[in-house]
């Protein structure tokens, strides 16, 4: 039986990275993800891995870029303001088609905001964030177990599709402790013929995102877009609860989804036909499934810790087949179970 341990989300994620074969971690302190950086500082070197505290988030993401170019599994983590600083590097990783795992333990914004949990970096994470036409796979855990499990998936997806993968979580999931089952360590494949490993017995490899010839850059973009379509067709992941017979569909991810799960149970106990769809992948987005459910349900309630960001993708997917309502908190508050329940009860009174 797998070993059951008690750790917080940040360290559970760090332990997963080590077990997933992360060779190099580069980071810069920022709350509320500091436990992760400290964990990597403590446990990477004794495991023969690389840890460097960089001089900035810019430097950290570019160290990731270098290590990844050299063919190694590399990761960085930060929180919202620091993730903004990394955007140049994430765009460059996407353009150069380098795998990397980036963890965003979100906090309140804009600007320096605060250190409380938030989901206000949704657009930045799923719509590109940096410059240029690129996408990154975005994974959204809602428990410490998933902070651990999805980290393994993040490294595999990054390697499989040669691009940046973001784990989009928040201060609550990073800070909270929960028992979870440790996954066994894996040995990732090392077949990366594109990596710069020295041109001893082959032609030189070149890692770049600059293509001054427009035909070449268009070709790169077409290749990237084809890859993104493939990801959209293969990698969508959701959790559904009681969606078979629901009239009211809650759609939420991460900490918001946890609150929804509580509200769902309470609402069902009171006889309301409520269901929940929780995307584990925010990009690719589960548009097809939401479209399907939108045709059946009376109302969709989108619960988010942002000012109507996540709801835009739900609305696009729902295609005006049903009403889509927003239930949200801002500035570092997590939606409360009772507020979601109240919203459900209010609907049924109409």
């Amino acid at each position: 039986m797998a070993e059951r341990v008690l750790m917080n989300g940040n360290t559970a994620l760090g332990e997963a990275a080590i077990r997933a074969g992360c060779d190099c971690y580069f980071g810069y302190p920022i709350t509320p993800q500091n436990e992760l950086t400290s964990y990597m500082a403590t446990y990477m070197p004794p495991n023969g891995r690389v840890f460097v505290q960089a001089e900035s988030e810019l430097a950290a993401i570019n160290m990731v870029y270098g290590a990844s170019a050299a063919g190694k599994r590399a990761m960085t983590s930060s929180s919202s303001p620091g993730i903004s600083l990394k955007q140049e590097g994430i765009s460059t990783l996407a353009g150069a088609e380098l795998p990397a795992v980036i963890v965003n333990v979100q906090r309140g914004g804009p600007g320096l905001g605060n250190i409380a949990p938030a989901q206000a970096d949704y657009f930045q994470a799923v719509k590109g964030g940096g410059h240029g036409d690129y996408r990154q796979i975005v994974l959204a855990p809602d428990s410490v177990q998933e902070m651990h499990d999805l980290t393994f998936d993040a490294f595999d997806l990054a390697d499989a599709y040669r691009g940046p993968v973001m784990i989009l979580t928040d201060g609550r999931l990073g800070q909270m402790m929960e028992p979870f089952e440790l996954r066994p360590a894996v040995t990732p494949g090392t077949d990366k013929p594109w990596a710069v490993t020295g041109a001893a017995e082959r032609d030189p490899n070149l890692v770049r995102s600059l293509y001054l010839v427009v035909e070449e850059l268009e070709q790169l973009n077409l290749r990237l877009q084809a890859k993104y379509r493939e990801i959209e067709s293969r990698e969508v992941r959701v959790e559904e609860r009681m969606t078979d017979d629901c009239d009211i569909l809650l759609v939420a991810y991460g900490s918001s989804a946890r609150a929804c799960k509580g509200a769902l149970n309470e609402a069902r106990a009171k006889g309301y036909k409520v269901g929940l769809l929780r995307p584990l992948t925010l990009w690719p987005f589960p548009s097809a499934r939401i479209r399907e459910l939108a045709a059946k349900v009376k109302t969709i309630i989108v619960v988010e810790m942002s000012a109507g960001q996540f709801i835009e993708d739900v609305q696009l997917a729902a295609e005006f087949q049903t009403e889509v309502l927003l239930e949200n908190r801002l500035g570092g508050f997590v939606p409360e179970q009772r507020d979601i329940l109240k919203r459900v009860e209010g609907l049924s009174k109409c």
Partner: protein
Amino acid sequence: MTLTPHSRPPEALTEKPTHYCPGCGHGIAHKLIAEAVDKLDIRGRVIGTAPVGCSVLAYFYMNFDVVEAAHGRTPAVATGIKRAAPDKIVFAYQGDGDLAAIGTAETIHAANRGEHIAVFFINNAVYGMTGGQMAPTTMEGQRTSTSPDGRDVETMGPPIRMCELLNTLDRPYYIERVAIDGAAGVRKARKAVHTAMQCQVEGKGYCFVEILSPCPTYQRLSPVDALGFVGENMKSVFPTRVFRKNGEVVDA
């Protein structure tokens, strides 16, 4: 023309003609690096990092693995490569905007950590790729497209001296400034580049070679006069000498 063995270009250079302007120092600097790579027999394990600037296309001319870095991030990328693959020989090739303006933090911290990389800093006192704007190393009074009346130190600060600045740190192993200002200057530059690369092969530590370099186009001079600008004007502000040797500060 038949090439004699003596004049054969280094194996570490490709045969592609460069895009550099007549009289530019980049081609010479590339060749010096390629010669060191050949001489040390490390073409199969050297990894270069190319900056943003005129030399962003350096990888088309270098016949070994190269990673292009975002503007100023070259030392961080080089750090990532070297930490991930310590058995490789890693160097950063950077211009003055890349190294001493947008990437100053990365430059200083890579040096302060004593990363085992060689940094080749091409200082031509002007931004070339973007069209002749003021560089952090532009000379006082020098006219550029963003200092049309000449660099005014009161509002723009004086040119920054990177060798002197880095020499205040504990960890660099070797720091030298050389100048491409004529045959003798190139010979000294060749030796400095070779030393920095040899130190990498020997695992000595962080090496920094600043190469004062002509840019006739944006120094607004003929190729010959640009060599004079480097040899006289620039050297009067940026003295060429060894600043650090075997990890020890060398007095002027």
